[in-house]
């Protein structure tokens, strides 16, 4: 007996029943395919939607919060920034190069769909340990795919982050964040308005790519032996996308577009229905008009194809000829495929027959909504009780070298030198420092971005871990002279049908929401990726945040790690405890221990430290947040990048390696006074010489440290 079609498509019997109720009849095949994809976890957020309202976004500078293709914030003087983060985890596991490449393509479309020119990308990544050749293959493929697509499409990749842990073997995480910039006149939305307006499909021809692919794939777990079920891989075409960007921006500039929507999951069916529903309208769509890549495609295939590099523009009838001319100039293919109607229905025809006729809004508005059971994992208490046991004394130099030799702490230039990170001449602080800093030419404004995640800390305590990544990203943009301005988040989790995973999810949402409230930062967008589970093993909960910072004016000489000089004083700004070792790099690498409960953040301190950093950025040559690896690694990074040693006096070793939050290092000429009320400030020592000298605790030769650090990632991938 064959399973009912709806079950093969991943729909429950109840969901199928809901479709029958909406239509007042059984759906035909193309209709069922549309509902199954649009109601998948990936498209409908059915397990998470009920909880995402927790995020606030009503600050006055928010133009669009979640809901549009990208969040949009106001930068003053007519400038707007658009930002967005997305995951492409499952496709990148199936085919790392193309999976990552099409992830980049997809997020860029979300940005220029809003009217903005995409100006930068970031790529938070997570893989299994590199000792395994399969993980190396995935890692190299993903980095190559991001480079191949991002560089060719002409959008610089300015940074990202990377973690390696067993839990990401067979389930790597590939997140991409994009930032766009526009003048306010260029802002467009997806809402199709105006009966009689015309729907134009722009870009690549439609083939049998990934039908039901990305979305179904991202809504189910992988099991051994699943290879055959994998839908065909989508191949990215950065050249087509580059042409599309230029054509769309040209169309906006000429005011030829009423609304526009990119084609992603569920292709034409999703774009047409979303655009119509957002405008409270209906749409008639003629599949015969679609330019296709292959002969004999069925209407269902054309409707559901996830071919890349396509956009749907809504244009007034009188502007159609001009719009087609503009697209033609940029050598972009077009077809006129539909008309906006006053009916509320999405009516799709093929060969003169109606192949689908459904209420346009039902695909999104009537999507199922689940409040799945939640329960704290049974092992959580014992994890918390299992605190790292610290040795009394350590060999400081060799411990530091072990940290510097970790591929996630060592030099990441093997990754970012494969990315064009300079295009557009806006990169003032590029990869290899803390947050990235971009200038907006012709203004004194600057935009900073930091992406941060810490899956191990979130595993030990999802709420505290999530709060802390928000504070960390805020500090990372603060050290460029910017204030935290808006946030996007990517919530990567395991199987939501497990109550323990839902607990991790809810704790994370609460953590991010709380920290953002404390910082008065709106959450303007995000993405949820569930079912990151292979053979029953869930990934560590891995929220990733992308913080946008804003400064006006921008510091003329923003701090960088390589601006330290011999003789400058080293200051630690922020609290010291010497006790926060749970989820620290020291515990993971030196003690080979995972357990304990990370320290809770302290909101007052966080706010004070962040605002102090953003002020000091205008006066001090080097500011560096203290993150993974603690003070020791942060100091070593400054020494290595500035090519100068340091003398540091510490009574105990623990404060060099613990990871107490809300701290940064400042390096400045002796006469600069860094003290401030409310924030602890302590002078640690002085830059100079060719070693990192820890007084009675010994020396580490800088050349040796640099060699180990430089090769930590490189030697593991080549």
């Amino acid at each position, binding site marked *: 007996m064959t399973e009912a079609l709806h079950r093969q498509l991943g729909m429950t019997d109840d969901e199928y029943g809901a479709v029958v109720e909406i239509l007042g009849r059984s759906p035909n095949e193309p209709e069922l395919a549309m509902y199954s994809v649009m109601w998948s976890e990936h498209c409908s957020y059915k397990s998470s939607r009920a909880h995402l309202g927790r995020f606030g976004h009503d600050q006055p500078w928010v133009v669009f919060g979640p809901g549009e293709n990208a969040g949009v914030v106001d930068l003053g003087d007519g400038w707007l920034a658009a930002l967005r983060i997305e995951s492409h985890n499952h496709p990148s596991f199936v085919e790392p190069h193309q999976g990552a490449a099409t992830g980049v393509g997809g997020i860029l479309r979300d940005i220029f769909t809003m009217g903005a020119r995409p100006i930068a990308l970031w790529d938070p990544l997570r893989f299994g340990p590199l000792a395994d050749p399969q993980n190396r293959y995935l890692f190299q493929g993903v980095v*190559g795919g991001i*480079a*191949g697509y991002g*560089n*060719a499409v*002409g959008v610089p990749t300015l940074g990202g982050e990377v973690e390696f842990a067993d839990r990401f073997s067979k389930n790597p995480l590939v997140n991409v964040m994009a930032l766009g910039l526009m003048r306010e006149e260029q802002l467009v939305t997806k809402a199709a308005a105006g009966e009689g307006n015309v729907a134009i499909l722009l870009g690549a021809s439609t083939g049998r790519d990934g039908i039901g692919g990305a979305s179904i794939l991202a809504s189910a777990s992988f099991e051994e032996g699943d290879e055959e079920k994998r839908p065909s891989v989508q191949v990215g*075409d*950065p*050249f*087509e996308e*580059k*042409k599309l960007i*230029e054509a769309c921006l040209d169309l906006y500039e000429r005011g030829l577009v009423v609304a526009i929507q990119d084609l992603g999951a569920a292709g034409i069916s999703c774009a047409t229905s979303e655009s119509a529903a957002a405008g409270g309208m209906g749409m008639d769509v003629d599949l015969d008009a679609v330019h296709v890549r292959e002969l004999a495609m069925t209407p269902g295939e054309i409707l559901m194809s996830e071919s890349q590099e396509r956009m749907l523009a809504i244009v007034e009838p009188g502007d159609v000829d001009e719009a087609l001319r503009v697209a033609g*100039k*940029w*050598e972009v293919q077009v077809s006129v495929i539909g008309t906006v109607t006053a009916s509320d229905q999405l009516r799709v025809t093929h060969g003169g027959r109606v192949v689908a006729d459904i209420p346009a809004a039902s695909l999104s508005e009537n999507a199922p909504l689940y409040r799945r059971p939640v329960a704290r994992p049974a092992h959580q208490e014992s994890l918390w009780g299992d605190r790292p046991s610290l040795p009394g004394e350590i060999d400081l130099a060799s411990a530091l070298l072990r940290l510097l030799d970790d591929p996630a702490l060592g030099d990441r*230039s093997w990754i*970012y*030198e*494969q*990315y*064009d*990170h*300079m*295009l*557009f*001449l806006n*990169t*003032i602080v590029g990869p290899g420092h803390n947050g990235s800093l971009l*200038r907006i*030419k012709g203004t004194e404004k600057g935009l900073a971005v930091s992406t941060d995640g810490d899956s191990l800390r979130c595993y030990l305590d999802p709420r505290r871990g999530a709060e802390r990544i928000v504070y960390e990203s805020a500090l990372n943009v603060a050290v460029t002279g910017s204030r935290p301005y808006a946030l996007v988040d990517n919530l990567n989790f395991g199987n939501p049908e497990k109550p323990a995973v839902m607990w991790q999810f809810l704790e994370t949402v609460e953590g991010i929401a709380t920290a953002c409230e404390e910082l008065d930062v709106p959450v303007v967008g995000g993405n949820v990726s569930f079912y990151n589970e292979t053979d029953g093993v869930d990934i560590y909960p891995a929220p990733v945040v992308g913080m946008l910072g804003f400064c006006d004016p921008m510091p*003329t000489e923003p701090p960088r790690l390589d601006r330290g000089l011999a003789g400058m004083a080293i200051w630690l700004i922020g609290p010291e405890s010497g006790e926060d070792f749970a989820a620290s790099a020291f515990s993971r690498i030196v003690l080979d221990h995972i357990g304990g409960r990370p320290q809770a953040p302290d909101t007052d301190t966080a706010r004070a430290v962040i605002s102090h950093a953003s002020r000091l950025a205008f006066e001090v040559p080097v500011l560096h947040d203290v993150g993974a690896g603690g003070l020791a690694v942060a100091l070593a990074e400054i020494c290595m990048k500035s090519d100068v040693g340091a003398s540091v006096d510490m009574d105990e070793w623990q404060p060099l390696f613990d990871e107490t939050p809300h701290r940064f290092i400042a390096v400045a000429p002796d006469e600069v006074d860094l003290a401030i009320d409310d924030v602890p400030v302590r002078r640690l020592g002085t830059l100079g010489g060719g070693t990192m000298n820890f007084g009675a605790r010994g020396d580490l030769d800088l050349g040796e440290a640099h060699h180990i650090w430089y090769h930590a990632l490189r030697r593991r991938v080549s």
Partner: protein
Amino acid sequence: MHVAVVVFPGTNCEHDVDHALSLLGAEPELVWHRDVDLSGATGVVLPGGFAHGDYLRTGAIARFSPIMKEVERLAAEGAPVLGICNGFQMLCEAGLLPGATVANRDLSFICRHVDLEVTSTKSILTANATIGDILHIPLNSYEGNFVAPESEVAILESEGRVILRYHGENPNGSTNSIAGITNRGGNVAGLMPHPERASEDVLGSIDGRVLLESFVGSLEPVPA
């Protein structure tokens, strides 16, 4: 129009070149590759990027764009013609410069500052520089590895037409560390690195300026 900056589908450095040349007082104008008239131009830049996606071969398809006839005419008339990165590859494909570029030795894209040594000043790109100058300029390419038949390399070397060479480490495996070359007349020049990315202090280096200034200085004044 003083300098035409040609835009092909897939080109992406046109605005950067425009910005850097404008800072130096030139009057660049972006020109679409289907235009067929460059009669107002006294010089041309083919900027970097991925014209036609770099599909087939870098620069191969772009070379047939309508505007390339005009570029060839200007080159023959002795006007300054500069190809940067992908633009350099187009000049090679069009036969205006010898050789070709292939994948980098380590098969990965390289985006970082490299050191270049000026090895000849007899070109529109290096006229204002001094032989032996070391310039710190970003390289940004996957296929930047310059190759040419041995006889062709010998001619380039003996005629002093290698104008820029990688100094220290050879980043991409280029034959004889060649980073930039010129034609016999010195008016057509190409290089893989991006001088426009090293033209302002805030970008970390201004070593590209001397090259762009040489180029701008070689332009005829705009006819009144």
